[in-house]
């Protein structure tokens, strides 16, 4: 008989080992059960561990799942789980590094936009679970925009993203219930995205590169003047304050006091 910590260490090693790994002989002597062999009984627990984690990834990345199909997704998920076992008792955060993993996953390299779709889904989830914060009224936003030294805070649920693929369109057709009918030709290239949950629903908004640059500067803590400069560097002709005001109408900012 081993101590409880030793037993649980050995059990954990078995659960996290690759499928098909032989059971530690000491462990197989310590457990028992009538009729059904010990190895099969232990396999039930191992299956449960992987099923939970694969299920969590599938829930978090429905568009990725649909894009590559179930068998490939399960294969990718198993590889990810082995490389990145869960460290948190809640599954809400599990898989945050899955997009990065897919970026280096050679078997998925024939779908070059896959890591970006995964990143969009991860940001969607972050926004979905983000803390509540009252949006900044448009009038107050206008006041701040006229003061170059002011700080304008993005809403707690706001996330920014860029992709060299039409990632939001690919995502959109894969999370809608409608069946994809025939080949999808996606025009256009790079996308600049704002993902935000001003009230209840997470919205994925396509924005211009200059608006994205301004918001990214605000996210870094730059002043309004610096953010406007970052945006107009990219597109000198743009009326950036007007664009930001229209975003305020969509509740993209929150007041500093809300922290």
């Amino acid at each position: 008989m081993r101590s409880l910590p030793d037993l649980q260490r050995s059990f954990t090693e078995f659960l996290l080992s690759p499928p098909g790994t032989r059971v530690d002989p000491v462990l197989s002597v310590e457990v028992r059960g009538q009729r059904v062999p010990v190895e099969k009984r232990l396999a039930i627990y191992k299956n449960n561990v992987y099923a939970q984690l694969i299920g969590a990834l599938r829930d978090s990345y429905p568009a990725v799942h649909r894009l590559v199909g179930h068998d490939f997704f399960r294969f990718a998920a198993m590889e990810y789980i082995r490389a990145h076992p869960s460290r948190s008792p809640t599954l809400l955060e599990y898989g945050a590094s899955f997009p990065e993993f897919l970026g280096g996953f050679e078997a998925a390299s024939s779908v070059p936009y896959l890591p970006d779709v995964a990143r969009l889904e991860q940001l969607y989830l972050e926004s979905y679970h983000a803390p509540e914060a009252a949006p900044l009224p448009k009038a107050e936003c206008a006041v701040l925009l006229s003061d170059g030294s002011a700080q304008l805070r993005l809403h707690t649920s706001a996330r920014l993203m860029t992709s060299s693929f039409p990632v939001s369109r690919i995502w959109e057709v894969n999370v809608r219930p409608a069946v994809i009918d025939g080949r999808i030709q996606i025009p256009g290239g790079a996308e600049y995205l704002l993902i935000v949950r001003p009230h209840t629903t997470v919205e994925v908004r396509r924005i211009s590169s200059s608006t994205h640059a301004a918001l990214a500067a605000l996210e870094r803590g730059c002043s309004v003047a610096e953010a406007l400069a970052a945006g107009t560097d990219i597109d000198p002709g743009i009326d950036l304050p007007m664009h930001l005001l229209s975003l305020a109408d969509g509740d993209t900012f929150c007041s500093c006091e809300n922290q």
Partner: protein
Amino acid sequence: MRNNSSLRSSLIASGVAAALGMVAATTASTAAAQDQNKEKMEKCYGVALGGKNDCAAGPGTTCAGSSTIDYQSNAWKYVPAGTCSDIDTPHGGGSLKPSDSQVPKS
């Protein structure tokens, strides 16, 4: 360059609107009422994503071939096979042939 209205556009909202349009055209008024209820509810509370921490056992378990852990670790068998085959991007991407790296190394 995008105008104001596209700046404010929400893909979610357009998805809901499209779904509502389809329902109105094809099904009875009860279904439309249910969808309106759904839209109203989602306006108040948001979209309900599934919970992940559900303590049930996984499916299949010990049945041969149905267990999650009954999988082939030879990577070359696994090729992306979902809707990605229906999507062409300007950068390519519909190619589903196994790359050299997926062929088993002997």
